[in-house]
């Protein structure tokens, strides 16, 4: 390089300063830096999430007396929930409806995720955006759209009648379990695709070529390589749909009618018209616990199955 010397900055000596104790702690400890940075988010979540939840737990042990609460702690609400059949029936129905909706969504979305992961080469991002776009937009309006489609004088009925296929509107379309399942599956499809797409996309394509090379046809290759390797995505997609839909309120409220009502509607009623907040709190806690138990069982089961396979 050239012989010229550096006629550099005038203040060539950088000041060497010692920091105060706080800066020193932050600088010396990586964990301290991490916590410091995460703390605003964490504090917010603690105050807005954990604290209310704890109060909810406490309230579930109270009793409603008119418009006031009897704050002596009792498990009355839980006993009632266990004894009165309506609660159990609604909870079972909620789990059943969202279970079926979950299976439907995963089964319908898997080929789509597979297609985009393996067969879309150009404009992949555009496909992904179009697949997930509806998820970000109003859940209320997407459910409302199904009310328009399935309604007594809605799109399907009026279209069928215009063509002359039916004389009177099909009544089972709206206000039924089926309507709720269809709507839930449709509304959560965009959410289900992403985790499955990600796990499919991660599969090393040379594994598939190796399987083919070793004599597997397309079907065996799919069953022996692709499906097992994408299982984590399928599992997280299932959980991501099952958990929130179990407590869904909007869909059963708009489309469920009496036959399609779910536990979420009952919880809302306790805080609304029935005005028994402690009971509503207890139902919320029960819902959380039931979901948690089912998820743990589901995860343990899939882990067990996966270990048996491999």
């Amino acid at each position, binding site marked *: 390089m050239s012989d010229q010397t550096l006629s550099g900055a005038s203040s060539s000596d950088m000041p060497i300063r010692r920091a105060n104790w706080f800066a020193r702690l932050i600088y010396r400890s*990586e*964990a*301290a830096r*991490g916590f410091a*940075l*995460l703390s*605003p*988010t964490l504090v*917010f979540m603690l105050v*807005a*999430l954990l*604290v*209310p*939840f704890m*109060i*909810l737990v406490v*309230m579930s042990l109270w009793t409603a007396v008119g418009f006031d609460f009897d704050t002596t702690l009792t498990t009355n609400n839980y006993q009632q929930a266990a004894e009165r059949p309506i609660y159990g029936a609604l909870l079972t129905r909620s789990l059943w409806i969202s279970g079926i909706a979950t299976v439907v969504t995963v089964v*319908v979305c898997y*080929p789509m995720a*597979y*297609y985009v992961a*393996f*067969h879309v080469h150009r404009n992949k*991002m555009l496909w992904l*955006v179009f697949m997930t*776009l*509806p998820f*970000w*937009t*109003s*859940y209320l*309006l*997407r459910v*409302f*759209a*199904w009310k328009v489609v399935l*309604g007594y*004088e*809605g*799109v399907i*009925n009026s279209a069928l*009648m*215009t063509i002359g296929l039916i004389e009177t509107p099909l009544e089972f379309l709206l206000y039924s379990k089926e309507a709720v399942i269809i709507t839930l599956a*449709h509304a959560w499809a965009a959410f289900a695709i992403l985790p499955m797409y990600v796990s499919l996309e991660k599969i090393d394509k040379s594994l598939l070529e190796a399987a083919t090379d070793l004599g597997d046809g397309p079907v065996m290759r799919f069953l022996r390589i692709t499906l097992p390797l994408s299982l984590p995505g399928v599992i997280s997609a299932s959980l*991501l749909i099952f*958990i*929130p839909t*179990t*407590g*869904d*309120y909007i869909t059963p409220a708009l489309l469920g009618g009496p036959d399609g009502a779910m536990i*979420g509607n009952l*919880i*809302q009623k306790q*805080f609304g018209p029935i005005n028994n907040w402690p009971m*509503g*709190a207890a139902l*919320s806690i029960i*819902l*959380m616990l039931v979901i948690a138990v089912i998820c743990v069982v589901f995860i343990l089961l899939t882990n067990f199955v996966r270990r048996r396979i491999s």
Partner: protein
Amino acid sequence: MSSESYIRRPNRPLQVYAIVFLIVLYVPVLFIPLFSFNDSIYVRFPLEGFTVKWYVELFHREAVWNAFMNSVKVGAVVSVLSTALGIFGAKAITRYRFPGRGPLVGFIMLPLVVPLIIFGVALLVLFSQMGVPLSLYTVTIGHMIVCLPFSIATLLPRFEGFDPSLEEASADLGENAWWTFWRVTLPMVFPGVIASLMLCFTVSFDEFIMAFFLTGTQPTLPMYIWGQLRFPQEFPSVLALSSFIIAASFAIVFVGLWINRGAHVSTIKGD
């Protein structure tokens, strides 16, 4: 690499399936704008003629404007605050090892999966016990719970996608944490920040369940729609309002996702 290799050769039935899938995904929603231009208060075939009167009528309704402004205010505050917290959170999660990181991240991401009705009633209980009256502020707090996980999930790949030695280089060249953030970190994650702002705004703008439990006397736009659903004669104007919200949401989200499209590709390391 050839796109026509054995594994990747075109699969015609799957392609048809994918196109049908997309159509089914969008068509139900598209009936809303379709009927919003229909000259009838009944939502049914056959269509009776084109009109924009439902939109015109909406435009002159003060309650709609109030609800709209409420939603915009809440959405703006929520998106800015959630994104700010999301930037801190995403940086902490990607850059530092600290004990309990995994469970803490799981905790922050909880609202993504737990039924929102539970958080809604929990917050309602908290506010009522503290004697806080329900207002747009309480809705804002509820929406931040919903949006924070989305913000972090949007920003995480951005932080993961850029070489940590860029920030180290900045420190090495004499900039403290504050200036490093403004001169290096923020420009690097900027598409993610914009996307987070837009997505959080839309999620808040469209959110119903939290608002349902936490709204006081001033309704947000989805709450307004919910109130109108009881009146059959209001159905066409609800359709018009919904069409507007859907169009705006799709546009904002599309732009947001598109700006952030390179998130999973490292834009730094390779040429």
